[in-house]
């Protein structure tokens, strides 16, 4: 069972969010005295906190979009609205033509949801029994189910894990099985909220390959919310960055990092400064990203200053132990973006 997405300009829109606002009520404690506590008990007061402040975006079918933001920005809240868990305070959301919080049943057939910190499986039951239960829930035929199990066994390597109770699986094994559970019904849209949290590098790589394969073979739209920038770099061509419930960037990853291709980061470790004033004057030519005892991280615009000259000058005024020069990683770009937002606000 699936429902048609709307289309704009000939391109099918899989996910549509329009002016989404979500407010939570946070209790406010008057004070710590007995009188305040009684007052709080008899007349509790709350303040309304806007977690989302008018989020709008469209995601086309077959796209893999990274949804980034600092802690508390509203990423998980957005995902929960799009999956039908939460109802927005105002605004509109649509996933494959369904309003998720009103048409939960229909939306569930179109979407697969995977939360890294929550489990989709039943703890005391073998994996295969959990998957069979989902087979019944989604109304899959025996052949469809076997085909999916064979697919997951080949790509995720879960065949050896099927008869093990979920509670006995390691984190990496459990996450692979959870992904299988989220995708058992061949959803057209996959929501991933921190899918690689707590995983080692090998398993992370494997998961990324799986998601890319899924997108290539089944044309699944992937909405990835993650703090791991390597996930985003490997998987996403487009990113949406939110902060304090507002979108601060929505565009291609290439455009985001392009602005910073002229920037280089010099990391220098030293044991002793010979000439303090010269050291300070060199440092002042650059933007200081980090300054600690005996090490610092400097940002240099190569159009304005020469990296070689700066490194050479630093080596003359301090006893350098280690120096490295590298370009901006996505993580650095995001950090600068967050910091700028912090300065502006």
């Amino acid at each position, binding site marked *: 069972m699936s429902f048609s997405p709307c289309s704009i300009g000939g391109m099918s829109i899989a996910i549509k969010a329009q002016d989404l606002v979500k407010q*939570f009520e946070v209790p406010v404690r008057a004070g710590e005295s007995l009188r305040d506590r009684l007052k709080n008990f008899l007349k509790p007061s709350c303040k309304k906190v806007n977690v989302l402040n008018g989020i709008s975006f469209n995601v086309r079918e077959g796209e893999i979009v990274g949804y980034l933001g600092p*802690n*508390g920005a509203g*990423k*998980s*809240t957005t995902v*929960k609205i799009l*999956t*039908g*868990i*939460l*109802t927005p305070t105002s605004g509109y959301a649509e996933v494959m033509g369904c309003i998720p919080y009103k048409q*939960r*049943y*229909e939306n*569930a*057939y179109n*979407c697969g*949801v995977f*939360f890294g*910190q*929550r*489990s*989709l499986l039943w703890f005391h039951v073998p994996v295969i029994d959990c998957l069979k239960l*989902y087979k019944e*829930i*989604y109304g899959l035929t025996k052949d469809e189910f076997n085909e999916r199990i064979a697919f997951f066994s080949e790509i995720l390597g879960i065949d050896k894990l099927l008869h093990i109770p979920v509670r006995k699986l390691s984190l990496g094994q459990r996450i692979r099985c959870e992904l299988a559970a989220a995708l058992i019904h061949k959803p057209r849209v996959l929501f991933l*909220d*921190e899918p690689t949290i707590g995983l080692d590098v090998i398993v992370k790589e494997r998961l990324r390959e799986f998601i890319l394969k899924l997108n290539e073979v089944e044309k699944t739209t992937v909405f990835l919310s993650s703090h791991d920038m390597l996930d985003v770099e490997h998987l996403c061509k487009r990113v949406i960055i939110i902060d304090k419930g507002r979108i601060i960037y929505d565009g291609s990853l290439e455009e985001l990092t392009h602005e910073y291709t002229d920037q280089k980061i010099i990391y220098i470790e030293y044991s002793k400064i010979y000439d303090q004033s010269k050291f300070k004057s060199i440092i002042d030519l650059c933007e200081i990203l980090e300054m600690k005892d005996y090490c610092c991280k400097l940002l240099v615009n190569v159009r304005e200053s020469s990296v070689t000259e700066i490194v050479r000058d630093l080596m003359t005024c301090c006893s350098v132990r280690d120096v490295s020069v590298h370009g901006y990683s996505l993580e650095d770009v995001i950090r600068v973006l967050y910091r700028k937002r912090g300065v502006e606000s």
Partner: protein
Amino acid sequence: MLNLCLSGFLTIIWILFWMVIFSRVSLLADWTLGEVIILTSFSNIGWALYNMFLEGFYSASDKVISGDRLERYLTKPVNALFAILFEDVNPLNGLTQLLIGVFIMILAVQFYQINIKPMSILISFLVLLIGWLTLSLIYGTVQFLSFWTGRTKGVMRFLVAFDEYTLYPLDKIDRSVKFFLTWGIPIIFLSTHPTLILVGKLDIYNSLNVLLTVSLLFVVWLIIFQFCWHMGLKRYESYGG
């Protein structure tokens, strides 16, 4: 086996309690020992049905607050409410209690030669069933208040304290208390009224009246229960990211 022994032991203790009371008096507010034993067995049967099928109404709050299991169902094509309430159904849970209740009832009817009509068996068990469903809906409604207030353990403890009254005949108690135990927390329909109907103390007209009353309460609480669920779900805030 342990459940069977425990249930049996507790039931015997309770019957012994009544036997001691009735060794001093021949009637307790117009109830005989046989009728009180049937009341005890109705209490057992009711509790058994609750433990087997309706316990989910009592523990819905933990699933709502903890959020983990509710979110699992909200993102699947299942009736989330039904899944939460009946996920942990375990027919074996109260089976021993049910068997003991039925056994004691049959023994009491035979031993005290109580005349039972087929119609009164049907009506009394219907009243019992609908009464327990109504009480479960009340529990569930209170549990769903956790969408707004957080934990509801304190209120639930207060409610559950009234469950002990299923072991006592409630038809001759103070009027205001009886009113509360009929229209507030309908404990009177869980053992007292079914017993009165079964032993023939209520004629067919009054028995049907009782059935109608408990059915009305059931419908009212069903509407309140559904309303709380729908409003609560709109209000649901999940937890964390």
